[in-house]
């Protein structure tokens, strides 16, 4: 039975629950918008990275470099799309 619950994945799960709890602090405590956003950005990206490496086995095979390159590329386009749009349409710069 024990072999079915690898330590690495159980730890990953516990850690992602902790990160969720930390993110919830922005709801349950009174804090400024910028501090809250900083906390959310940090917890969300750590948690996404955790999923990628621990659960999706991104770095396991010889295709490791292609997989990471592809994810980084997707992420860069995503961030440019989001922040580029905000810059022009919302923040009015």
């Amino acid at each position: 039975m024990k072999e079915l619950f690898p330590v690495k994945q159980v730890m990953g799960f516990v850690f992602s629950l902790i990160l969720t709890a930390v993110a919830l602090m922005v709801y349950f405590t009174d804090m400024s918008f910028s501090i809250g956003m900083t906390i959310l950005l940090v917890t969300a990206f750590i948690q996404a990275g955790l999923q990628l490496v621990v659960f999706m086995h991104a770095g396991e095979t010889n295709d490791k470099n292609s997989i990471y390159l592809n994810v980084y590329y997707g992420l860069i386009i995503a961030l440019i799309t989001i922040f580029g749009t905000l810059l022009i349409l919302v923040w009015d710069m």
Partner: protein
Amino acid sequence: MKIDNSLPLEYSTEENNLKILGFWIFLGAEIMLFATLFTMYFTLENRIGNGPSGAEIFEITPVLVETILLLTSSFVIGLGIHAMRLGNKKAMMIFFSITLLLGAGFLGFEIYEFVHYIHVGATLQTSAFTAALLTTLGTHGLHVTFGLFWGIAILIQIKKRGLTPETTNKSFIFSLYWHFLDVIWIFIFSFIYLKGMM
């Protein structure tokens, strides 16, 4: 077909490796799809017209339950893949079934949430904000719904054919999809709900 027995079954042939890499490339495109939806949401979130704002309609309880359900299901399918690599077909099928049940639970809560939104007057036509919100949540929800059917089909195949290079490859790719949906949910949870209620 050349089978390399030193690797887990899902990676054991060249074709399997390529299918997994190909699915990662699909996920890269999915990242960009959701990026455009988030772009739309962040641009329009304050354009509420005569409708309600996010802070007025979001409820923490269902959102929290959905988050825990999806997070747990993502963990359980990871255990399923681990059991698959140990060659334990029964444990793998149990973990996959639990994953799908948790996914169905998630979907139930999301449907409840949508009914609630429509009940309080936040429909697709109410304002730019509600349209962007429901489209983003709906796209994620549709992905989960599709995942449920996909998962059931995979369970049937595993039951019929056992753990072969083909079925393990399909299961592994399905697990990638499922984890990816959890990643997207983390961003929805953080930057739509928590940000909106802050």
